């Protein structure tokens, strides 16, 4: 337990000395992705081997240790999940990819004892070897601010966080600055909410600060519901203390004494890392009563979601914390005025809070120097879909789409042609080839009818059917519609019905126009953000790929994705009339005379494709 600023500073100095004495650091990625690949077994094996070989290794960071040691750590997500399990060696900055348990012995012998790189485990691309993480093209073009420590420190240790300067921004806010000054710096930095809408965080803070109330709350939205987005998950798992620190600073700035973090239930690891982090901060006295001997007290709770996408909407999220169904409510009153339990509340997203300690320490000018005018800072994106390098990335606001897709992402998988990228999840829109030069920031995206959303970028190549993608998103929002308002509840249902008809080959002339009309109506009249933005994927795919919709209505899926629009037929010239196909057909749609070409009755065929694989002469073709 530390009771004063000096004690915290002493602890930091001691821990930093401890960190410096760890002359070699072995960081095993323990993010959700790498754990799925077996990284915990690798960690345990390394620990076992180090013990066996009597190497001087430490797991927990010590204050002012006497001897040098090897630090063995479980760290957060590096973002390069596809190449996992990942292992980083510091201070060299080497990154080993796709590490297997069998490699552990060699890593100990050659790298940890011998100090040499094992080239086989380094990242390879086009015949080139990239031993250093920072040289890998995927990382080279990135600017990591929020994710700076993700993958570089022990994600489960407050001591590691303090050693690298953690909680120093909180300390400054608490001792050296007035609440007004903290608000001013955040406001001046131009930091906009990273959860989607991009509302300036400083203005929210200022409003809450000015309001008189017996109780105020700091709310952290970790209900990252957009399918295809996992930035917040990685931050909560990889650097949980920076989120806590950001919330504490918000508490100092606004006079709030209680905070809530709402995390979706699908992120069990994030919940456990945050719980652990809160416990550690409480034990040290950084969360609790009279923090560091001041009169500032702060309590922090974690709430787990229960599987409702709408709870990412802040008023629905608040209802959920209060123990209600997650229904959004009409605004005003705004959340900042009347939020959680009817009290003034600062609602920000995980990534927004994670930026705060850095802004306090480095100043608003530094933050503004990153990014583009009116869109300062960086943005983390989850780059997924049909792309070569899948993973978590962070680039300055305003980076052109082209750079993200090609320089960082490495282009489409298998050299396929880029078709579109879905940005902003089910509330966003798609960007196409014509947008490759577009800077990715709030304002530029708004102009073309898309939003940054929470930052999911799902890349689609030439083989992706855009009508099916639109149906997929509509199906998602329809399922997740909470049912409170009619436009969203009924409107999305009707839109989905039409889309389902179109992809199953039953589209009609005029369907596109009805979709357009419904989309405008829902956007104009739905109650909350989820409903208002639900038609966006349909609207933007109609705008950019109207020809695909028209083709479907005529009975053709240009990419051959939509099963029900497929036609299976027998090539007369290749068929030898062996009857094999007719015997496997589950609906007796194939008939003919032995030794003469068989035919498929298209009215009976269910397009299951069972016949295609059985034909020994490859005579059955799909179009």
């Amino acid at each position, binding site marked *: 337990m530390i009771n004063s600023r000096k004690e915290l500073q002493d602890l930091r100095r001691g821990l930093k000395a401890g960190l410096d004495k760890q002359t070699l650091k072995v960081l095993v990625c323990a993010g959700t992705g790498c754990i799925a690949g077996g990284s915990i077994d690798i960690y345990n094996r390394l620990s076992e081997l180090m013990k066996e070989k009597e190497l001087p290794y430490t797991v927990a960071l010590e204050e002012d240790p006497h001897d040098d040691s090897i630090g063995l750590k479980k760290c957060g997500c590096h973002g390069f999940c596809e190449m*996992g399990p990942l292992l980083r060696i510091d201070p060299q900055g080497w990154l080993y990819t796709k590490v297997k348990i069998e490699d552990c012995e060699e890593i100990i012998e050659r790298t940890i004892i011998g100090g040499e790189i094992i080239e086989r485990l380094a990242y390879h691309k086009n015949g080139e070897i990239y031993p250093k993480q920072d040289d890998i093209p995927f990382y080279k073009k990135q600017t990591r601010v929020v994710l700076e420590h993700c993958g570089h420190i022990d994600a489960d240790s407050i001591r590691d966080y303090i050693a690298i300067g953690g909680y120093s921004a909180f300390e400054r806010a608490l001792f050296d600055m007035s609440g007004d000054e903290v608000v001013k710096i955040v406001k001046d930095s131009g930091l906009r909410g990273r959860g989607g809408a991009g509302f300036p965080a400083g203005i929210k803070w200022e409003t809450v600060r000015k309001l008189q109330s017996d109780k105020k709350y700091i709310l952290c939205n970790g209900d990252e519901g957009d399918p295809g987005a996992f930035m917040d998950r990685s931050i909560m798992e990889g650097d949980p203390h920076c989120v806590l620190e950001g919330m504490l600073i918000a508490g100092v700035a606004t006079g709030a004494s209680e905070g809530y973090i709402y995390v979706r*239930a699908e992120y069990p690891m994030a919940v456990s890392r945050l719980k652990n982090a809160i416990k550690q901060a409480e034990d040290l006295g950084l969360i609790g009563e009279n923090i560091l001997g001041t009169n500032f007290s702060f309590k922090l709770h974690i709430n787990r979601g229960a599987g409702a996408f709408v709870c990412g909407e802040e008023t629905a999220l608040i209802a959920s914390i209060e123990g209600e*169904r997650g229904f959004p409510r009409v605004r005003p009153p705004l959340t900042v005025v009347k939020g959680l339990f009817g009290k003034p509340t600062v609602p920000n997203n995980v990534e927004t809070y994670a930026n705060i300690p850095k802004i306090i320490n480095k100043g608003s000018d530094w933050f503004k120097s990153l990014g583009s005018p009116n869109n300062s800072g960086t943005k983390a994106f989850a780059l997924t*879909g049909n792309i070569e390098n899948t993973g978590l990335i962070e680039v300055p606001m305003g980076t052109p789409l082209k750079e993200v897709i090609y320089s960082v992402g490495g282009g489409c998988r298998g050299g396929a042609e880029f078709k579109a990228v879905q940005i902003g999840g089910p509330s966003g829109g798609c960007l196409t080839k014509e947008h490759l030069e577009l800077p990715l920031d709030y304002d530029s995206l708004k102009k073309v009818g898309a939003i940054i959303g929470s930052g999911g970028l799902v890349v689609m190549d030439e083989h992706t059917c855009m009508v099916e993608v639109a149906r997929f998103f509509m199906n998602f929002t329809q399922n997740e519609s909470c049912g409170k308002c009619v436009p969203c509840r009924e409107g999305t249902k009707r839109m989905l019905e039409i889309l389902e008809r179109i992809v199953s080959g039953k589209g009609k002339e005029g369907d596109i126009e009805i979709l357009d009309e419904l989309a405008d109506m829902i956007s104009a009249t739905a109650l909350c953000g989820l409903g208002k933005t639900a038609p966006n994927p349909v609207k933007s795919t109609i705008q950019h790929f109207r020809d695909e919709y028209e083709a479907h209505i005529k009975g053709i899926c240009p990419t051959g994705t939509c099963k029900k629009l497929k036609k299976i037929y027998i090539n007369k010239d290749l068929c030898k009339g062996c009857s094999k196909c007719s015997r496997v057909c589950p609906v007796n749609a194939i008939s003919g005379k032995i030794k003469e070409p068989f035919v498929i009755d298209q009215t009976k065929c269910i397009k299951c494709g069972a016949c295609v694989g059985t034909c020994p002469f490859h005579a059955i073709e799909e179009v």
Partner: protein
Amino acid sequence: MNSNIDLSEVDRILQAHGHSPQAIISVLQEVQEHYHYIPREVFPYISKGLGISEAKAYSVATFYENFSLEPKGKYVIRVCDGTACHVRKSIPILERLRSELKLSEEKKTTDDLNFTVETVSCLGACGLAPVLTVNDKVYPAMTPDKVSELVKKLKEELKND
């Protein structure tokens, strides 16, 4: 109705949350973790313990997708059908799983209560798409054939139990 349900665990959960009505979601989550579903018998008990109406408790339990009033299988397999997994072909995986276990969109749990197959909108492991989880353990980069292998393995585990 099954009246053999042991409610002492529910008591403990209610107490841990100080019988606060706003804790309803956490209470239901913990009840579900204990029984693997929310038995209907616990509703009168929970509502009394939290001082809310039974209708309110039901309304919350049925609103959130994670809550199940039906018993689930020993192995709960959740196939991710988020955008990233969807564009990397998660549906063939789901179809194979359902056909192997003779399940469908309507019938999610096998009669012997060994397997439940559900979809989930995103597990946030998009870098490893397509993924599925078996009781929260993530299986990366799945294919229909890997799924068949997995089912075989799980069935063997059941036999050895």
